[in-house]
């Protein structure tokens, strides 16, 4: 309730809250469905959000783990529309996962992937899921040196001397 009153203090928040209330009344949705109104910084701090990200990005692969924190940093600074899309997808993911497995204690990447797959297949929610994925993947692609992480090795940038010009006829050690 505090949250609702806090929002009512601004005109924009008031209109949004009324709309949320009306839509919820008409569709009979619970408050849980409308969690996109939540705060992105708080959401990205949740343990289950971290598990959600593990489904989308294999941070356990060599070289990728170090990009988790920088990505969370970028996601917590998303604009309003982008935050809304990501939170919507995450809320949907949480709801569907809990519906199937009752808690996140038995979480596995495979189970998570199945949920996301079904969300992408479901006509009613696939658009938003796709959009949220675009946002998350766009954010990770903007991280400094992500190219190195993606291939696990250095590569040559256009217009500058090849990183391997002296030994480009040899294999590269992949870290």
């Amino acid at each position, binding site marked *: 309730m505090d949250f609702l009153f806090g929002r009512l203090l601004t005109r924009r928040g008031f209109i949004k809250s009324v709309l949320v209330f009306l839509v919820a009344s008409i569709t009979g949705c619970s408050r849980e469905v409308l969690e996109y109104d939540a705060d992105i910084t708080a959401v990205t701090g949740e343990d289950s959000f971290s598990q959600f990200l593990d*489904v*989308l*990005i*294999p941070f356990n*692969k060599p070289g*990728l783990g170090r990009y988790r924190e920088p990505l969370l940093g970028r996601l917590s600074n998303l604009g309003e529309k982008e935050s809304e899309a990501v939170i919507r997808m995450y809320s949907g993911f949480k709801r569907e996962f809990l519906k199937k497995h009752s808690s996140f204690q038995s979480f596995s*990447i495979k189970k998570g*992937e199945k949920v*996301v797959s079904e969300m*992408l297949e479901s006509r009613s929610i696939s658009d938003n899921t*796709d959009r949220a*994925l*675009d946002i998350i*993947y*766009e954010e990770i*692609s903007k991280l400094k040196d*992500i*190219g*190195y992480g*993606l*291939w*696990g*090795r250095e*590569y*040559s*940038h*256009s*217009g*500058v*001397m*090849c*990183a*391997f*010009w002296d030994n*480009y*006829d*040899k*294999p*590269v050690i*992949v870290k």
Partner: protein
Amino acid sequence: MVSTDKVFDICIVGSGITGSLAADHFLSKGLKVVMLERGDDVYLPDTQDGYWFEKWQSVSKNPNIYRNYWKNAEKYFDDLVEIENVNKDFGFHYNMKYGLGGSGAVWSGASWRMTPEDFRTRTLFGYGRDWPFTYDELSPYYDTVEQALFTSGPKDIPSWPWKNNYRYPAFRQSYLDKVVKKVFYPEFNITPNAFSVKNLPPEEGGCVGAKACVVKCPANARFRPDLHILKKHFNNKDFTLLMGKPCVNINLRGDRSVESVSILKDGTVSKVRAKYFFLAANTIENLRILHNSADTVNGPIANSSGLLGCYFSSHGALVMSVIMKEKLFVGRGRPTTSSAINTLNHRERVRFNSYMMEIWNSDWSIGTAPTAIFNNLRIKERNWGRTLFEKVQEADHRFAATLIFETEMRQRNKVTLSGVKDKFGIPLAKVDFKLSPRDERTFSYMKIIANKLKEKEGVKDIKKGGYGLNGNHPMGGYVCGDDPRTSVVDGFMKCHDHRNLYLLGGGAFNSTSALNPTHTIAALALKAVNDERISF
């Protein structure tokens, strides 16, 4: 200002590789040379996308007109082209550029000669047209070109069809090249390419292996006619360079020799007079000028045979995305360092055209850097999760291989003028091209080869990445020969119809071969300027 009274010794239309070689030749003899360049700048795009890939956009469906399209396109690509009656996917999408140095300023540097057999396809294999001279007669000019364009190429390769004395040694083959060589042998023998790029240590001004060498070679190691030929003549009092002045047409005297060319200058037409004229724009541009010059008093230009514009062609290509089992460590070094040319004169050339395979240092159909690949796989293919990241990793196992094939030069394939005009009021080129039954058979054979390569040990998969006609290699349109009834120019690229008009560029080709034409175009230009009939 160009004095309308001044008569130059030599007038050259176009400042690309052939125009620059011609200017250099005549200026070194102390002659007065005027060079006309339609572009008013040097075309150097900011990004790889700005050059490396052909992009075109349909402007109108009826007539079917398209244009090259990317950033600043209008500045360099006002050359719309109309296409008529072509195989849907084998239209010629013109991709040449205006500006100082012409397309030579953004040339890949691939420096192949044609094979001796390519000059005699009619005699040896029963198709096409024989050239009026042999490979051996052109060979000395190839030698000169390889020195002038500081070509780097291999030595002591057993199946190499030529005897070269390259100025610099060939570039080392990449790790990827070596893996492909091992897997594709013996059908394809992967050997180093010849490039007009200095293979010297970077500290001596050689290639630094930057992937963007075609766009902006950071070391200036790639040959550029503007930098490496024309620049040294900028202060030569005998050299007049007129930029931003499109040549509109040619004017004849009563004896059918060329009196002048008309150029557009500040919206008005001026005449440039000279004793000899060299059209050194590319095939399409030369043909536009020639077709646009029909003179009601003195008759058509260069067309007493009725063949002007005919026998037009380019190279066919089938692009393959090859996924190897072994990791290839792609995306480093030059865009390409090797090809397979052991297939050029294959045993069945009587039935199928000549072909070769180019090995690319990445699978550019999905991007050339991991982040670009990641974005492509997400945005275009909608991959996500582990699959997305595994596919990005898999890209380190992928490369592009292009099967390039010769096309048959036929009279029915031609360049004429469109009814639509460009911004200068010059009619567009209209290209009418159709694959011959022999070309279709060759294309089918390329697809069979791609499927057979799939079965090779070491290959995980091959996806066909597209096919079409190369928009960078216009050839034919003013074929050469000894008989004025069946050809437009003679063996020195001089028009049969006009004693002082020479046509440089790929238009004089009588066969396309399967190899990049630039080196042959340059050799023909040197043959032309050395014609002993040119006298003062």
